[in-house]
């Protein structure tokens, strides 16, 4: 799954560690998500979208 996590994270100047703490996962999970290796659950995708200050999940995650 393609994601725009890195783009929005850099825009907000948040590190992977900070994002991981904010959504309650490990940094390794954030790395996997950014590289498109792991498909998140709807709950996690929603949390990340909110932390990255986006309105819709589709803005961050693209199938």
């Amino acid at each position, binding site marked *: 799954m393609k994601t725009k996590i890195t783009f929005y994270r850099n825009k907000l100047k948040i590190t992977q560690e900070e994002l*991981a703490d904010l959504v*309650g*996962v*490990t940094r*390794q*999970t954030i790395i*996997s998500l950014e590289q498109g*290796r792991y498909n998140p659950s709807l709950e996690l995708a929603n949390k990340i979208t909110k932390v990255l200050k986006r309105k819709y999940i589709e803005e961050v995650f693209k199938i």
Partner: protein
Amino acid sequence: MKINKFNSREIARYTFAIFVILLGVFFEYLRLGDKFLEFESVGSWLIYIGIVMIAVITIQFFNNRKRVVDERAIFIANKSTRIVFLTIILFAFLIMILDGIHPITMPYHLFMSWLICGLLIVYFISYKIISRFY
């Protein structure tokens, strides 16, 4: 310095370890079983296991490393468990054939301890490999 607090999980683990030690003392008192896994008796083995359990729980308690179990970790753990399950089936099939060719005379407790160690190794290796792909 941050002082950790006991939670219900740690209390349960300590209780179980103490129960294992007490069971060992009881077995030792009754002199049940001898020569068990290179130990003098089943009781002495249980006491040893109980002390090791207490040591491990205490080390984990004082280790301040933050442990996060997220959905990816659970996902990988589930996949590893499936691999371990398949390994048990294949291993059981293999053992049946080997036992048919040449009867296995190994004591049951020794066989089970080797099997459990083997399964833990399979789980650990498969977890590490799968985590590279997800």
